[in-house]
């Protein structure tokens, strides 16, 4: 079963994604901060990571993305940025750091699941 890690400090958003993806056969993992996201990523090696940027704590989404891509063990995780930072520079920065996709909040759950289906197909 494919593993998807949801990283967001807003519990409501994590829940939304979880529910959205509940129609597929995924193993859903949660992380509410950058540090937690890295930890779980290393432990569970998810296939996809849905990554928020603006999170409390030392590591934001950009940091997580960079560190992830540096670690050969987990560099192959498909990263979809899921963030409220909708400006062009933010998107460029995220993609430059190695993110595979970029979703701006508010997002459509249907579009998200379509995307994940395509990635995992």
């Amino acid at each position, binding site marked *: 079963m494919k593993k998807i890690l949801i990283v967001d400090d807003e519990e*409501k958003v994590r829940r939304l994604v979880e529910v959205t993806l509940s129609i597929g056969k995924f193993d859903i993992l949660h992380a509410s901060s950058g540090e937690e996201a890295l930890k779980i990523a290393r432990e569970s090696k998810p296939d996809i990571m849905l990554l928020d940027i603006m999170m409390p704590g030392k590591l934001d989404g950009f940091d997580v993305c960079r560190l992830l891509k540096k670690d050969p063990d987990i560099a192959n995780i498909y990263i979809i940025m899921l963030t*409220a930072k*909708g400006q062009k520079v933010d998107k460029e920065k995220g993609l430059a750091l190695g993110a595979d996709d970029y979703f701006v909040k*508010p997002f*459509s759950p249907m579009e998200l699941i379509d995307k994940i289906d395509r990635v995992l197909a």
Partner: protein
Amino acid sequence: MVSLKDRGIRTKIIASMVVLLVFILLLSFWVSYMHEQKSLLTNMQDNAIILNRALIIGIINQKSIAEKVNLQALVEELSLTEGVFGVWVIDNHSRITSATFREQVGEVASCRFISEALQEGYYVSGFDTKMGEEVYTAVYPLKKGNRIFGVLEVAFELREYLRAAPKDRKQLLSQMKKDSRIMAESLSYSIKNMRDVNELIHIQKLVDRLTTESEIISRIMIVDDNSRIIACNDLNRVGMIADDKGVRAIINGAEIYTRLFPRQKIYMVDMPLKIGDEFKGVVSIGYDATNYYTHLSEIFHFGLLISGMGVLMGILLSFQVANPIITPIQRLTEVTKKLAAGDLSQRATVSSKDEVGALARAFNRMAADLSRSKEEIDQYSKTLEEKVRQRTRELEISNQELRSIQNELMEANIVKSELLSIASHELRTPLTTLLGYSELLLTRPLTESQKKEFLGFINEESIRLSKIVDDLLDISRIESQQVVGFVKKPVQLAEVLLKNIKFYSGVETGHRIITNIKQDLPLVSADGEKIGQVIKNLIDNAIKYSRGGDIMCRASVKDEMVWIDIQDQGIGISEQDLPRIFDKFFRVERKETAHISGTGLGLSIAKYIIESHGGEIEVESQLGKGTTIGFGLPIFKD
């Protein structure tokens, strides 16, 4: 030669004066030299004319010297005959007229046979000694008609005779007698046409005497009208043809012809020898010109000396002339240089009344004008500098103002961007929830409890969104300096406080809200709703930044103001963050606050509202212990 162009005026004056003086001196010297030369030559020429006259007088009795056979030449020819020792022609005074030995010409013959021959008119011959040699000599009288005018003596060598045998001697002797007779006869025949042999002798004698006795005459030559030399100081030349320019010129009719021979130092004067009007020949006299040349050389040296002195005097004189002109000009030049170098106090000290003086005075006027102009310029530039400085100061001040405005603008711009960024995030998060869950509700088959849960989320996030929008609007109004529409009324703050605390009574926050309200608090003039918003804001913060614990709300009177204090037992604020908590968008960012959301606008709105009421807002905090934020509003007075 050094070009004068490069030199100073002094050098030019001196040089021209020296040149002028030397020129004058040389001219005068040359004139005197020429004059001296001319007078010397004239003197010698005069002498020559006098001598010429003397000669003419000396030979005036000769009828025609032009016809003379050259006796001497004949004698010398005869001398060449073999065996002949010598030949002599002697006049009737026993004087030798011509001789093989030229040096004897003019001497008195000593032969004992001569007087006999002269007196008796015989032929006499016999042995004799001539110049230390044994000779046989024969003497023949020379006759013209019956008159004996001289004798011819021929001396024969006796060497052959003495070597010969005695029988041959007689024949030899007769042969010698015969020879001598033939010679005498041919000679006497040759000189038959001569008027007087004596006269020729006289001329030669005269010439000899003149040349030996006179110190100034070094040559005399007398030439007949056929250019034959009759007499000459150089006997070797007698009988030869004279072929020099002077003789030719005189024969061709010139009256006098003079030449100088500088190497021999001789002045030659040629003049015709005339007896009456009859041209007889040429007298050529050579004067010793040593004195002439010595004299000229003395004059020349003297001239050189004078010229040298002239140069010296010229230099001295030039200095005398040039200095009074040049010194003031030099001084003026010095002063001009100093002036040009920037020393405007320099003045020329020339006091003369000439052109130089006028120049100096004009210069001084110019210097004074310059100095005055410079002072004016200095003064003007000083004023200008002061003006520039002042203007610069003003500009600096306005620059500073501009810079601070610019900084403010830049800050405002940054704030605006921040606002946009934060607002975007803060707005997008609830919107995500709203959009996401509503989509789920619309598209998914959901259980009733799920529907209820999702609708609850939607409701919460809508309230949150609404609050954010309110805050943003408030702050936007504050930013644009619009006066927020306050509706001020006398208000009891305790009531406002209690009303807002009641709002939290139904919400599970994990906190206990305790009140401590003083009795009979005075009223304040305030917009109750806005003040309520402030109180709610403060309580919200107290809840957000503390995990449990009591929240104490106090109301009291202090310094003519009614104070509301909200105290929590939360995380507190660090000292460095404390001054910034009222700044717009400022949020304490620490690990503990990571989960707390907010716009960072609440406290800055609160501060604005309180200060707009003429009140004060204060904060006290201790890290880890808690924070107290309180505000006071002035007591309402009728």
